[in-house]
């Protein structure tokens, strides 16, 4: 069969993301819905085609959630359809709004982060300077902190879903690991912002 040629950085990025999405979605579907591997593959194939068409027809141009959240939402819907057609569980078993809740949480979390910064009452210029430090820290997050923090704060996944996708033995273990990551991030952030402050003081003197 024909294979798409990868020619530049953006195409390599696309291939990498495609592999990542498949891996995470497969783990999620197997552990959350206890589905057969072959059913999961079917769902991921169908969901990928839907994502592809959504990208092409402009549906994703104003996406409020992350792309992965959107994709996993499609997979969830497909999983429910599959389970209903197999008559394995009642229609409203999960009672979850598979499409809307994730993007509402996501939009909200970003707004509330801005609100929290206003409550802390830092000068806007100071915040902008700190954002540069944070950007570098976020880009260099080591595993497993990278996966945990991005999944929780950007993709809006629950700790239960995160535990399933990344193979943690329980939700609590994933949660404790995430909190440790948050604390490490805070410590590193404090270290770098105080170094910056000291440098600025020396310059002024």
């Amino acid at each position: 069969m024909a294979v798409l040629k990868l020619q530049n950085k953006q195409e390599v990025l696309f291939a990498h993301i495609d592999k990542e999405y498949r891996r995470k979605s497969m783990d999620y579907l197997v552990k959350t819905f206890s589905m057969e591997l072959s059913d999961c593959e079917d769902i991921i194939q169908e969901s990928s085609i839907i994502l592809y068409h959504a990208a092409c027809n402009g549906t994703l141009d104003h996406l409020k959630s992350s792309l992965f959240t959107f994709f996993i939402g499609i997979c969830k819907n497909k999983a429910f359809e599959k389970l209903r057609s197999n008559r394995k569980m009642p229609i409203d078993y999960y009672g979850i709004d598979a499409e809307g809740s994730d993007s509402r949480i996501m939009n909200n979390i970003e707004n509330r982060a801005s609100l929290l910064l206003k409550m802390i009452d830092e000068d806007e210029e100071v915040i902008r300077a700190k954002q540069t430090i944070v950007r570098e820290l976020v880009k260099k997050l080591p595993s497993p902190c990278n996966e945990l923090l991005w999944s929780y704060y950007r993709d809006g996944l629950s700790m239960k879903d995160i535990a399933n996708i990344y193979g943690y033995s329980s939700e609590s273990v994933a949660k404790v690991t995430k909190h440790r990551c948050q604390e490490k991030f805070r410590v590193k952030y404090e270290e770098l912002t105080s170094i910056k402050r000291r440098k600025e003081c020396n310059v002024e003197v």
Partner: protein
Amino acid sequence: MSKYDKLSNAEKVDLFLKGEFTEEECSLFESELYANTELRSMSESSALMVQEMHSIGKAQDKEIVDTIKRQSGMSRIRTSGSLGGWKIVAIAACMVGLIWGGYRYYDYSYVTGLGKEYSSALPFEEVVRGDSNLNVNEELSLLFDNIINNSDVRPTISRLEELWMVSRGDYYNEYTEYEPYIGWYLAIGYLLDNNKAAAVPILIELKKTIHKYPEELCGKLI
């Protein structure tokens, strides 16, 4: 003690960010922000992290969507005409093919994922003893760190294979006491290298001495 008081700083910040505090808890949180410097610091770093993740994430997602559009050549395909329609089907078929190949990736992902999960299960500190050979400790530190950090895995496996044989030799030597740890990290190295067949016999052997983790891992692999 109220429910709010039992929360850690990280939990308070998360509940605030997700909008899951009651009005009363929100007030408590806001008051505590001024009094508790650690909470304030956690709040600031977490809020900035969330903002940056959303900013970087949006840019990355846009890049992916733009790449999909470019790959499909949608701007050049006309929706009317059977030739345009066939191009869309062919491209979708390519995507299906790429995804189907991902099935094999799942098995690899499962085995290597177990390697990553268990790589830190046996704390390396236990190996270091006051009167032990410093060169041996140094070498083992380096090898075990490679496994924990998933770097230079294959050369590390080769060396651990040699040491595994040595540590289990007929005569007592400088590696004998480290046998369970060498075996453990060798097994984890095999898993990281997606070599389940080599890892399992070592784990079965280790069940006699380390009990818990090799038993757990065997249960997941066999």
